[in-house]
């Protein structure tokens, strides 16, 4: 397959997931388009390096680096987080899954370290498997699993639940944990 055809195939595969990746990190409009374009420009320039069998983790790794560097440099992350929280207020209890309200989950996620948030977003929101997580984080598959496990545990603690029981003692199903600040 010639490089141009390969890139077009990568584009068709990755456009939607990369747009969602940007959306999941609070980027919209031109900001989201810029991130997607930058990732695809890298793929376009380095098409020979994009894995033929599973391109998405490679592209997510590029996106991860671009987004992280931009955020680190210009403090946009703080602004994005504010926008992000404001953009997705807590949903009604009827929308909850099990005992976890989406709003409470997103608020709890926002209380974790940026590294933990990213691991959980990549798996839960962007749909990567633990094996696909490794190249994005730049670590071994074993280390990626460990980081996911620890991030998940910290999320559970943030929600006031342990690994075995989803609803903390003394709290009814559907009730928000008191210590989680739910964005309004």
């Amino acid at each position, binding site marked *: 397959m010639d490089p141009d055809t390969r890139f077009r195939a990568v584009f068709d595969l990755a456009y*939607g997931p990369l747009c969602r990746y940007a959306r*999941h990190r609070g980027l919209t409009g031109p900001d989201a388009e810029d991130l997607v374009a930058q990732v695809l420009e890298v793929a376009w320039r380095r098409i020979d390096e994009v894995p033929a069998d599973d391109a998405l983790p490679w592209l997510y790794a590029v996106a991860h680096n671009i987004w992280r560097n931009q955020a680190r440099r210009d403090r946009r992350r703080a602004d994005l987080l504010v926008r*992000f929280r404001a953009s997705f207020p807590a949903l009604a209890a009827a929308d909850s899954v099990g005992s*976890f309200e989406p709003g409470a989950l*997103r608020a709890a996620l926002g209380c974790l370290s940026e590294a933990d948030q990213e691991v959980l977003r990549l798996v839960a929101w962007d749909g990567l498997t633990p094996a696909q997580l490794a190249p994005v984080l730049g670590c071994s598959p074993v280390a990626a699993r460990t980081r996911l496990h620890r991030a998940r545990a910290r999320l559970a603690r943030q929600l006031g639940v342990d690994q075995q029981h989803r609803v903390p003692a003394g709290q009814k199903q559907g009730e928000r944990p008191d210590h989680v600040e739910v964005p309004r």
Partner: protein
Amino acid sequence: MNQPDALLAALRAARPDPDYQPAPDSPQAMALLARVTAPAHGPERLRPSSRLTRRVILAGIPAVAGAAAIGAAVEVKSGGGPAHLTAPAAASVRAAVLDAFDRSSGDIIQITQTGGPLGLEAAPTAKGSMRAWIYPMLAKPGQEVRSRFVTSVAGRTVRDAEWDYIKARRRGGLIVVNYGDRTWFRGDNGEIVYFPPIGATTASVIRDNIASGLIKVAGEATVRGIRVIKLTFSSGFVSYDEATLYVDARTYLPVEYIASGRGPKGQVNQVRFALQVLPATPVNLARLTTPVPAGFTRTTKPPIILSPWIS
């Protein structure tokens, strides 16, 4: 972790906008594809025949064709009036305009702005205008941008400001010369309440609106003696309620942009930008420097600029 995980499943269900499914064959995607595969971004191996390469890549995408195809694809009535255009023709114009923007992204854009500001609390100064120069026209994040804004009221210069900054960081060195009290200030724009004026983002706003795919080709006209194609944005574009863009029918570069929207009190404001792309020659680059006139006093008090219209 290998077992179905209720917590991760719940977190997945809590992802924002779960129904968001952008399509790779949407107009927005096609515009982005054209942007990504523009010659300036392409691999070195493609550059000698980049135009041809782009056509190969874009083959099978009728909505995106090169600028050379416009003449055959666009039916524009002579003598004004609405043109009868097919959707692919409008998409072709869009692609050609985006291509022209990208080719000129490293040039200087000169913007002459008249009309009231939109969405600002400050009331516009009557009879105000502003001339701005931005270099490069479309900077990438991390790239240094030089800009200068000269504000005039009733034909007299009231303020001349130079702002050099790094794209997407928003902070940078600033020189403001106030002709009203004959003072000048040098500092960091972080000390100022509001900066930059709206013109600083004009080129990128226009480009984003075009890339959105929501433009319509509305005919042809003549603006300042230039034969232009009239493009309208009916809804969903950035920053304004309505906008019209005139592009040079020969080069597809922007000539004039008119936008209107409602202000904070519901009043309709219209702002007009006369646009000219200038090559980055030494003479044109000199326009980016704000001179401090002799006899003006330097002040350490940061100026409070609510908009370029407030003197």
